[in-house]
């Protein structure tokens, strides 16, 4: 199986499974209990917090959650304040941010959506125009899950410092964490979301980085775990397994290797001039359109050759479009023929070579039949 949908999820590291098992079957204690065995688990969990902070290159707090959706909800609803505050989101956000934004709008808050430009990044001029001293929160994703475009967070921060210094900056870093080399301390980020299963950790666990806890309120209620911001017994095995994945993910080496994979695939695909490749940011994600063929059809046809590609959160009907690509100015036909190819360091150059050729072949086969 040649798995080219690593932006959807990744294979869990075997070592992470071992760690998961250890904390599920041996050190399974509830870390809130007072006996030494439990205190040891709590210490291990705190080590994982430090590991994440170190990776992010910043001081602050880590709140463990069930994943990015919960982190994003906590970041946005948790920082919501009553009064005449305004909220700013990009049009390229993942549904776990975007649908929160539309909910705020339905609740009567003033919500601004910033367009995307052709290169997949947000329109910084528009951002500048919509933020002001009433802005409570700006939420911009780090790397687009659809296109791999990387937003210039330094620039976002500078605009914020200048036009709305009090506004909080939330960044959904799901497709960036571990994969890109950066220090969020450089961008003065207030809230940062990560998700374990995107870098070979288990599903069902994630975290929210919080610079200043005073900015946040809890949105669920219970036993007061995670400093009260996320009640519920901690998913200790999940958290420890995530920690394993973080410490075994070699950001620099993987980046360089994945870039090689991506370049090889680009080379293979560009043999066919009809195919349009959109390569603007993270080497982990390549957005490709195959004119004349429905992306979903291509995806299904490729799986018969054991090649799995994604079509993102793309359209499943004739009617529904794709919000992100639409915002970038894609027309409906381009959206329909869009496929997302996303890499992992576990792929070999040989596999990519085979996949690249096969994709071109299968694409042309279908095109021949449907044109």
């Amino acid at each position: 199986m040649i798995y080219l949908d690593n932006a959807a999820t990744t294979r869990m590291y075997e070592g992470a499974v071992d760690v998961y098992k250890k904390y599920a079957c041996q050190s399974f204690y509830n870390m809130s209990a007072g006996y030494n065995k439990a205190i040891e688990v709590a210490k291990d969990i705190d080590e994982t917090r430090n590991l994440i902070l170190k990776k992010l290159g910043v001081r602050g707090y880590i709140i463990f959650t069930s994943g990015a959706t919960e982190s994003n909800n906590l970041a946005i609803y948790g920082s919501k304040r009553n009064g005449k505050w305004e909220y700013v989101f990009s049009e390229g956000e993942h549904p776990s941010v975007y649908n929160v934004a539309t909910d705020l709008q339905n609740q009567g808050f003033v919500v601004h959506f910033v367009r995307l430009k052709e290169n997949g990044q947000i329109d910084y001029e528009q951002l500048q125009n919509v933020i002001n001293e009433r802005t409570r929160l700006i939420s911009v994703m780090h790397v687009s899950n659809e296109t791999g475009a990387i937003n210039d967070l330094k620039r976002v921060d500078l605009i914020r410092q200048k036009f709305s210094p009090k506004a909080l900056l939330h960044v959904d870093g799901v497709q960036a964490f571990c994969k890109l080399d950066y220090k969020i301390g450089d961008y003065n980020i207030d809230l940062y979301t990560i998700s374990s299963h995107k870098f070979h950790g288990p599903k069902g666990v994630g975290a929210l980085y919080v610079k200043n806890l005073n900015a946040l309120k809890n949105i669920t209620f219970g036993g007061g775990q995670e400093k009260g911001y996320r009640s519920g017994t901690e998913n200790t095995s999940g958290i420890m397994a995530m920690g394993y994945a973080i410490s075994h993910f070699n950001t620099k080496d993987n980046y360089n290797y994945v870039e090689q994979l991506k370049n090889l695939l680009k080379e293979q695909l560009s043999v066919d001039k009809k195919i349009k490749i959109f390569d603007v940011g993270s080497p982990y994600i390549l957005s490709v359109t195959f004119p004349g063929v429905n992306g979903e059809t291509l995806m299904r046809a490729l799986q018969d050759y054991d090649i799995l590609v994604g079509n993102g959160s793309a359209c499943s009907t004739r009617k529904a479009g794709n919000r992100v690509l639409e915002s970038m100015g894609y027309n409906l036909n381009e959206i329909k023929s869009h496929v997302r190819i996303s890499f992992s360091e576990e792929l070999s150059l040989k596999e990519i070579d085979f996949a690249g050729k096969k994709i071109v072949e299968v694409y042309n086969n279908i095109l021949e039949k449907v044109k």
Partner: protein
Amino acid sequence: MKVLLLRFGELYLKGHNRYVFENMLIHNIKNMLAGEDFRISKTFGRYVVTDYREEREIELIEKLKRVFGLYSLSPADEVDSDVEKIEDYISKIKCEGESFKVFVKRADKSFPISSMEFAKKLGEIVLNNNKNSYVDLYNPEHEIYVDIRINKKAYIFDKIIKCQGGLPLGSSGKGLLLLSGGIDSPVAGFLMARRGMMFEALHFHSYPYTSELAKDKVITLAKHLTNYVGNLRLHIVSFTKVQEEIHKRCKSEFMITIMRRIMMRVANKICEKYNLGAIITGESLGQVASQTMQSMTVTGSVVKDIPIFRPCLAMDKEEIIQISKSINTYDTSILPYEDCCTVFLPKNPVIKPTIKQALGEEQYLNVDALVEECLEKEEILEVSSEFDNRD
């Protein structure tokens, strides 16, 4: 004693073969209630369900409401049809402050008092026991029915619950339903089943142009239909090759016409093979290009020896939607997966094709071979009515 009194509708119209229908109905009732504790007996013109667990009454009623051939039912109390015993029962009815009406029906003419007389008498008893109540013959808040049957029992109840009507399932033979995944075809199946026709279903898919999810959706629809028709056999046929061939060789505006002609041929063959006596479709006159009078003439003309039943033919979309909601297929039908009819959809499909034109297009195809190939790759699923997470 608590009982459920069942009435059947149209079976009255039957002559000397009426017992066949009645036996079928009772068989279907027993099937529908399988797993429940109950007994069922027949008195002239009624079935009576007895000895069931009272706490299951609501579920029993829900199930019986899905049995075709039943016209209505009433949860009732059974008493001996004796004047005093009935009066005694009626004297215990509480409807303080409400308007009421007593209906008496006397199938047993040996009962000593006429229906009218007895109704008056019982009304008086109710009035005496409920001082602030009054009789309202036109719009009563409380209805009291007394049904005196020839088995020397009287059934007393306060409501009549409407059932599906129609004829017992199986009494009208067995057909083949073309099940697309849309709103209309499950409704068509339901309507034919209500007229007593059992059916198997046939679905065409076009992988990889359509998704596995589209197939799953059809299985879910079939599952919903099993609530009415019991276990259902689903034939699944790959139509990819046919569509590719038509697309390649025929004029694009004839895509749908030729496609449907081949579908009909495949259906015809499957009917032959499995001994099914009719093709059922969800077509509604004029709804889309392939459902005009001319299109149906052209697609229907390839079917030999059996009829095509189109129960939605004269219905408006809104009426079809209403039925699909009532049989719980609507929410599944509107899931947004492409079905095989939406792939290769021409911009301007022909609205008034002729048989001659269709034959003209088909000469570029090896129709028989395509039909054979469809049949070779036929997949059969037995969709059972057991509960699973689709429900």
